[in-house]
């Protein structure tokens, strides 16, 4: 069978161009991940969770069919125009290339005012209490503090542990109005390469450090409002909310 994708992220496209083969890393209901030897990752799946710079978007019917023939460890032959599996071909010939948008730095105040309308006090009963996060965020601007993000990386449940999603939120605000000491950013970049979190999280953070975020996040900066914030909240089972919590805590830092 030949299937078609509808959109390909810019990062995914460059990975397809430079890798001859990638293997299936993990499979979920709405998509699956493929990785190369260096653990660079492409997410192939439906647009349920929005568009990712390292994503290839397919419709749910295609996903339904692809899932039938897919197993973790399967090797896929890749080039810019297609992903080839023994049982199917996923063609990108007619798909739109999704260029990641630069973060919009003009609406920080508006983001702050929208996000402040949301309540995150349930986090106080978790590993990520407001008090704990306030300390971490405050330490981030102090180059002499001991690597404050170490506590968050890889901490929590799921495919992208909550701590990592919170970091993504913090890094997004840092892109809008830089406050984190370079030393800590450099250390984070080195630290995540040491197998301290899941491959998926590692890729999200790597890109966030380069200023590349998924569309659900950049949408908030482009048009801050209830609609874009709610869309982020729906992402994953808790990822969107964890990211937003990172944004909220950073914008309201003391």
């Amino acid at each position, binding site marked *: 069978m030949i299937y078609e994708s509808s959109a390909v992220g810019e990062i995914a496209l460059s990975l397809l161009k430079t890798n001859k083969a990638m293997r299936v890393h993990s499979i979920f209901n709405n998509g699956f991940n493929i990785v190369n030897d260096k653990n660079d990752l492409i997410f192939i799946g439906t647009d349920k969770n929005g568009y990712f710079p390292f994503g290839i978007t397919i419709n749910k*019917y295609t996903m339904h069919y692809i899932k039938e023939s897919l197993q973790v460890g399967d090797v896929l032959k890749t080039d810019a125009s297609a992903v080839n599996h*023994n049982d199917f071909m996923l063609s990108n010939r007619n798909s739109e290339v999704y260029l990641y948008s630069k973060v919009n730095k003009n609406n920080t105040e508006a983001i702050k005012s929208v996000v402040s309308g949301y309540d995150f006090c349930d986090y106080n009963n978790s590993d990520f209490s407001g008090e704990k996060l306030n300390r971490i965020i405050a330490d981030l601007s102090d180059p002499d503090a001991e690597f404050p993000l170490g506590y*968050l*990386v*890889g901490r*929590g*449940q*799921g495919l992208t542990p909550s701590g990592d999603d919170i970091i993504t939120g913090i890094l997004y605000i840092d892109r809008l109005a830089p406050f984190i000491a370079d030393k800590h950013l450099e250390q984070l970049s080195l630290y995540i390469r040491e197998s301290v979190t899941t491959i998926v999280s590692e890729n999200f953070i790597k890109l966030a450090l380069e200023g590349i975020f998924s569309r659900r996040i950049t949408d908030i900066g482009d048009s801050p409002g209830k609609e874009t914030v709610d869309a982020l909240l729906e992402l994953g089972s808790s*990822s969107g909310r964890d990211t937003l919590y990172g944004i909220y805590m950073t914008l309201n830092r003391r």
Partner: protein
Amino acid sequence: MLYTIIKENTYQDSIVLMLLSQKLSAMDGVNKASVMMGTPANKDIFKGAGLGTPELETASANDIVIVVDTDDESKVDEVNEAVDTELAGGGGSDESAKSSEAHNWKRALELANNPNLAMISIPGTYAAMEAENALHNGLHVFMFSDNVPKEDEVRLKELAHEKGLLVMGPDCGTGIIHSVPLAFTNTVAQGDIGVVGASGTGIQEVTTIIDRLGKGVTNAIGTGGRDLSTEVGAVTMLDSIKALNQDPKVKVITVLSKPPAKEVQEKVENLLRSIDKPVVALFLGNKPEYQEEEIYHAYTLEETAVASVQLSNGEEVNFTPSTLKDIKADFTENQKGIKGYYSGGTLASEAAMLIKHSTDEEEVEDDAFTYKSASHEIIDLGDDMYTQGKPHPMIDPEKRIEKLETSADSEDTAVIMLDNVIGYGSHADMASELAPTIKRITDKAASEERSLVVLATVVGTDKDAQGYDKQRQILKDAGAVICDTNDQMVRTAIELIGSKVVQPETSVKSFDKGTEDLSVDDKMMSLISNNPSVINIGLKSFTEAVENSGAEVVQFNWRPVAGGDEKLMKVLQFLNNYEGENV
């Protein structure tokens, strides 16, 4: 005592893991349990909760780690099982009922219980090779795969015929073998009408109408669209007719196909004239010119079904076509067009034929259309041209939604026709996918005080999972007018624009009785007289229908040998089947 379970390179989202932690902690005899990805930070959490173990340190960030605190070591197995079930997609699924799975022929043949049928749905390039393997192992073949070269089809069918076996397909979408539905098929009552057809949705339309008229079909054998070509020579159709003829439970034989090459049609008709059972024959696209004493020549699919039912009841054939009368429409002068957007290819062909035979517009040749003229258009959206890279329109509503919207806005559109083919393999609720668009376009037309009629027909039975009545009701509530058959829908559309379909007038002709050899191999009789025991090579979803009807099935998870290198595969294939003279 603490026990550690590590699931390497395994993922689940956080909700699943949290629920799993709760579930495990609530198990009798478990003091405490926690499930997390094995990241260094999470290892600290384990330790903080008093669940640190030496094994924990060996887990990587991409492993799921479960630490259980229990005094009863036997609980660990129980926990492990619960975890596996949950990670495999949640509890509740009955693993014991799952069909057994194999990765090669040897294992598949071992697992299967006297297998006699291989269902093949792997890519066309490889399908012929596996069909040959199946035949060499003494199995009949149902080939769903398309893109199989014609010369391979000829070779396979000749080989099968020699061995007393049947090859259904390639590109065979539909089949019922001893009431077991294969591939895209409806659940139809058992009965004394035997069907052979070279068209998938044609078989679906005829068998479901027969079911709704209170009769049944135990065997509906698909031959694949090219079986009646000159090169293939109707090998499968001829063998199938002979088998149905020998089956004492079959009272009427129903044959359907597009008009074949002349010499092939003669061959088929000669066989039909050799048998004693009443026959209904449809060569869709032709106007029948005569009737024979034992063969009823039908014009449409509904007529084929009705004639088969009447003959099975021992009655004379008497078919009166019907149309829906009380549809209010006040079309403008420009509104002359009938637009049909089909998921069933044969249904589209039937619409094209009826429009061609009863309207006076000149046909425009265009490969994208089953029929096209100045005002009318009929499209088979299941045609390769529209499905490249997309799922079939029986599964994916996208293309039809698009067509509905553009045609509704077109000034010349008077009537839009849609089919909704339900049953195994089709969308779980296509009516609900199409309904919002139907509602939007009919509401819009009404608000503009413009007449627009959307006609729809559902191909299915009350035994199909989607629910025949439910699908009709959803479409009706959305504003479509529901027709009982495609025949009725197209005739109604044609009447709405002021024309009428005239039934062909036929004379009675008699021919000499045929002299064909009617003997059939026992393997063929065994295929149609018992539940098949199936080896399914390819799409796993096909096993569901087979299992639901109580037949046995072994899933063969096929992977190409020799890394998919076609040349090397062919060499291996040759060596495996090579029978040296000095063995």
